[in-house]
């Protein structure tokens, strides 16, 4: 197994406003979102980050995708540091999260070409990939419909396709099936499996146990910004179901019933 992505001691804090302090009932001005997180993802595997809401999954992924900078620690992708050379990292990863929206005004067809240009994909390659991906996700019939007029599921599919216009080696997906109906969710998970078959590395975050059990080769469980377990699925579970094992870990960590 060849490691492709290594996160070392990632730490990220956010400053809380007075209002946020009141809401969280705390006097601390700084909230630690990710606290010394380390893990490694290997080439050609699907790595899952599992954790409850607010555990720091999305923050971790945003740091890996160079959208935000870690306060401490670093992560390397193919040996390239996300802190020192974010531009080079960006051309090698695809990132999909609900936070990244597409402009309603444009059509999927135009946006695909636009982002291909920005990623420096040649127009011939872009056209070929567009035909293939649009066909696979059924976007071809809506290629000339403005994004604003598409259904939620179709929008998500277009976002997914746009996030991989440059055929990246590492694909980072934040809650990829959130808000999707079962049919669309299946299209997405099938696509993730297909990416793995083609030797790509997928990092995904989720709070859905079944998704991890179905897709992931290895899993890291994050609670309160810390990695409490990280290994292959059977090793993490140790004979229990993932769900039972998760609550056990949660109890150990918090010292109370979840």
């Amino acid at each position, binding site marked *: 197994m060849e490691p492709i992505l290594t996160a070392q001691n990632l730490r990220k804090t956010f400053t809380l406003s007075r209002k946020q302090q009141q809401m969280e009932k705390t006097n601390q001005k700084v909230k630690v979102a990710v606290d010394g997180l380390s893990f490694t993802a290997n080439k050609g595997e699907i790595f899952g980050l599992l954790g409850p809401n607010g555990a720091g999954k999305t923050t971790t992924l945003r740091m890996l995708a160079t959208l935000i900078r870690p306060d401490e620690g670093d992560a390397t992708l193919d040996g390239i540091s996300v802190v020192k050379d974010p531009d080079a990292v*960006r051309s090698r990863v695809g990132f999909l999260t609900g936070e*990244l929206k*597409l402009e309603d005004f444009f059509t999927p067809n135009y946006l695909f070409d636009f982002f291909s*240009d*920005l990623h420096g994909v040649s127009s011939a390659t872009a056209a070929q990939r567009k035909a293939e991906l649009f066909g696979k996700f059924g976007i071809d019939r809506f290629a000339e419909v403005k994004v604003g007029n598409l259904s939620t599921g179709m929008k998500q599919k277009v976002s997914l396709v746009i996030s991989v216009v440059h055929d990246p080696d590492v694909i980072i997906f934040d809650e990829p099936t959130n808000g999707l109906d079962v049919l669309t969710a299946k299209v997405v998970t099938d696509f993730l499996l297909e990416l793995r078959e083609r030797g790509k590395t997928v990092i995904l975050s989720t709070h859905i146990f079944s998704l991890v059990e179905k897709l992931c080769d290895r899993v890291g469980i994050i609670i309160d910004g810390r990695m409490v377990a990280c290994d292959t699925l059977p090793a993490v579970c140790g004979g229990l179901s993932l769900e039972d094992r998760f609550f056990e870990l949660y109890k150990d960590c918090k010292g109370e019933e979840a």
Partner: protein
Amino acid sequence: MKNILTIMKKELRRFFGDRRMLATLILPGLLIYVVYSLMGGALTDAVGGGGEDMEYRVLLHGSSDMISAVTLNSGVNITYYRCPDCTEEHDRDTAATGISEGSYHAYMVIPEGFDNAVMTYDPAGGLPAPEVKIYYNSSDADSSAAYSTLLALLNALESSMANRFDVNVSPDAGFDVATEEDLTGMLFSMLMPLLLIMLMFSSCMAMTAESIAGEKERGTIATLLITPIKRSELALGKIAALSVMSLLGGLCSFAGVLLALPKLMGGEELGAVDASIYTVGDYAMILCVILSTILVFVSLIATLSALASSVKEASTLISPLMLVVTVIGVSGMFSGGAAHLALFLIPVYNSVQCISGVFSMSYEPMQIILTVAANLVTAGVFVVVLTRLFNSERVMFKK
């Protein structure tokens, strides 16, 4: 470079593909033309001069005890001058030069033996009444005021005497010595800077806020930020596209104002206000100034918009700026010209002074060069700031 073009093309496509946005560009110019044309000469009277304590200097030829008594007792501060060596009446051109130079405000010619002639004049006799001639320059506010004051006094006197004399009735005598250039220059140099600056600012404002704060608000800018393009390319691409669009809007408004002003001043019949007195060179200068000013506006508004998390917040941030720009624009109406060269290094203020200078035909090329250079440097500084903001996660992902 290629990325800058890609971003630029996207922005242009965004705006040109949207009919409503396009309309906001072109409408102001069109509206100005229509509204100003309809308003007609309403504004002519508003271009006033004089004032309570104004001393009117009037060069007098001939004499009349009657007129002297009336004007001197009226409470209006009129001082009569006599030209010591003149026995003959001045011709129109000499009068015009004197008024333009400001040595006196009006030149009044009273025919010889006026008082007697008036007394013995028989209105029923069919002969022309004795005539008082007053030369003045309507493009000079003070001269214009002097004329109206004199005319009002003399008209009052005339009616009290059963119309036994006339004022300025000779046809084609050209009592108004203002040239076409004088009048056009005055009107354009007063109104153009304010109008142009305001129109440019507003055409930049809507689009820039939409393009930067709007993209932040909708979360679409993050999608751009995870592509490998440089933040500086994003900043330059956006500013270039927004400037092209604002320039287009600015030019539409400029054309609207240019075509409408003669109508506004009711000058078309008189042939008094005519934009064709300016050369291609003059317009080229204006264009340079407009373009550099738009770059300043766009980069400045873009920077403020990047700080805002929504279009609404951006407008709130920009509105005080709008006020400042308006005040600077108004300053162009009262500027005497011949300002210190260093003043042309102040962005926006320099643009106002240049536009005013070009239209009043009193600019120096150095002023334009300094203005364009200062504006380009300012815009460059804001591009750097904007790039930094695009790099700052605290600014870009603030909720």
